[in-house]
């Protein structure tokens, strides 16, 4: 597949923005400035970037507890995200949602929730809306390997298949469901196989290679948008941080869940450093250009933190605001 230099640079920028934003949260989490539960996406950036590059602004995206990357890749505003993670009034959910409830309706980020598998059926419904209106939108729900334990996933696969709905089920298999290694929670670790019995087209793909992600996602979105029904994709990946917070032992109990050797192995498969090596090798970007991009993004992230820290929290007397419209 041929790529324009512009697309390649954008994929790199998106991944890097996600990574720098995620890593910028570590210090304020550790020093207590950020208090809400934060599930870092570091290590999985290629999936959000590669997949969302195939979506239109109006396509519907639903996420999960680990969705900063999806929000940013779909066009969500960085400042509003960081401010929301600080639970400030200037955040994308006005400090009512925090890290686990990012939203950007104008960019199609329709909802992000931490109830495991909680948005899968919502994406099916958004796809149903698109089908009724014949507006050619597609809907996606991102979820993790842990969500494969929830019954609603299978109900949704069947429902979407029966009605040929334009919905893409994206499973990011990062090999851990909170503290449980996948071998302990599933009989079989080839998740993409669950789609076949429902007549849903499926792909299994390396989730740490942004170009492979892009290509598979392109096929999936085209299939869906042309009215051929739902698609299931399993992206194999690895989270470089803990389930919640920077480390696995953030809560003081889950120490050394993951074998050090395993972590080291996956560090070598880092989606961003591998992609920047590729871009230099292919002469798409120079080392200097990459340095400039890194500086630019670091400045944006820094500004977002300043904006968030200087913003006010919502006033206590507004606790009843937004219960009903």
């Amino acid at each position, binding site marked *: 597949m041929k790529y324009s230099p512009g697309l390649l640079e954008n994929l790199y920028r998106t991944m890097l923005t996600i990574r720098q934003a995620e890593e910028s949260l570590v210090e304020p989490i550790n020093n207590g400035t950020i208090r809400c539960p934060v599930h870092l996406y570091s290590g999985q950036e290629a999936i959000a970037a590669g997949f969302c590059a195939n979506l239109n602004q109006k396509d*519907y995206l639903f996420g999960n507890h680990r969705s900063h990357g999806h929000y940013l890749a779909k066009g969500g505003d960085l400042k509003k995200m960081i401010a929301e993670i600080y639970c400030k009034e200037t*955040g994308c959910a006005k400090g009512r949602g925090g890290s686990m409830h990012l*939203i950007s309706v104008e960019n199609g980020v*329709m909802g992000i929730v931490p109830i495991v598998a909680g948005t*899968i059926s919502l994406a099916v419904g958004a796809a149903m809306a698109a089908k009724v209106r014949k507006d050619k939108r597609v809907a996606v729900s991102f979820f993790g390997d842990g969500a494969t334990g929830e019954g*609603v996933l299978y109900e949704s696969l069947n*429902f979407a298949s*029966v009605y040929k709905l334009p919905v893409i089920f994206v499973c990011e298999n990062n090999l851990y469901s909170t503290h449980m290694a996948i071998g302990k929670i599933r009989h079989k670790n080839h998740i993409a196989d669950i789609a076949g019995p429902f007549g849903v087209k499926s792909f299994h793909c390396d989730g740490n290679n942004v170009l492979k992600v892009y290509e598979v996602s392109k096929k999936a979105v085209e299939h869906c948008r042309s009215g051929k029904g739902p698609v299931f994709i399993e992206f194999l990946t690895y989270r470089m941080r803990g389930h919640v917070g920077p480390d696995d032992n953030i809560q003081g109990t889950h120490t050394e869940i993951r074998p050090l050797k395993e972590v080291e192995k996956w560090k070598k498969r880092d989606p961003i450093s591998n992609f920047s090596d590729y871009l230099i090798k292919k002469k798409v970007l120079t080392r200097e250009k990459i340095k400039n991009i890194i500086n630019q993004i670091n400045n944006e992230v820094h500004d977002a933190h300043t904006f968030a820290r200087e913003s006010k929290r919502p006033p206590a007397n507004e606790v009843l605001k*937004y219960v009903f419209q």
Partner: protein
Amino acid sequence: MSSNKGTRKLNYALAINEALAQKLESDPSVILIGQGVTSPWYVGNTCKDLVERFGEERVIDTPVSENATTGAAVGAAIAGMKAIVVHPRTDFAVYAFDPIINQAANWFYMSGGTSSVPVVFWLIVNGGGEQAAQHSQALHTVFAHVPGLKVIAPSTAYDVKGLLIGAINDPNPVVFIDNRSLYGASENVPEEMYEIPFGKGVVRRKGKDITLVSFSFLAQESVKAAEALALEGIDAEVIDIRTLKPLDEKIILDSVNKTGKIAIVDSAWKFCGFSAEIAALINEKTNLSNKSILRVNIPDAPAPASVSLEEGYYLNSDKIVKSVKSLF
């Protein structure tokens, strides 16, 4: 209540049908989804001719997957549709607590007011008939407990049309508690579309000795009970609150301040129940003595099968009469 112009007798089930048909007709964003929407065995006449008139894309009969189909209704609403999802037996909606309670109820709040969920959760109660514990539960209290959900429970054909249209037009999630035993009840219903505002109860019978507060099927039974009590010299005022949330506190308090006694007639369990909420309201906002507050509920037990046990379980006008007389 209803004007004579353009009205005719219509039963409760067909009043629902007319509300659904008129909304589907007038608003292309309205969809109806749920198990049995094409089958009278599930939903009586409430969905008569809808699939024929509006097509399978907007009137969607579903596999037995309450969680996913309710979630799909919520997702469609988030994506700009006005969705109605029906559970022909309330009990099966328990499978859908996640989309109802975790998602829809919280959605507007947790998005900081940026995204609302115009969805109607239509739950049909089917008490009696030796159907036992999983075909008969009245769960209105559970939903009324949750911030972000409105709960309506109309008792007449006129009310159900106006409240259901109001529910579909409401930008918030609304739980519509329905009772199959009301389906045959007829009255004059306007042909045109109309809305009944939420949070407005209605006095079904004026009286001066005691206030009976109820809703849905038991509002009708309370009227019957009041007629029987009148024969024994007790003049009961009957209030049908119509919507549990928002609640018309004023109509209850005004009546109680006049009569000095209240019987709260509730089709669900007593413990932590809706009748407890109304009793607390009376305690907080009137000077009534606790001895003048009566809670009439079903026993704190699962619904039985055998009709002999059902007789000791479900409420009816006779039981309301008997309970009320204990206050005199």
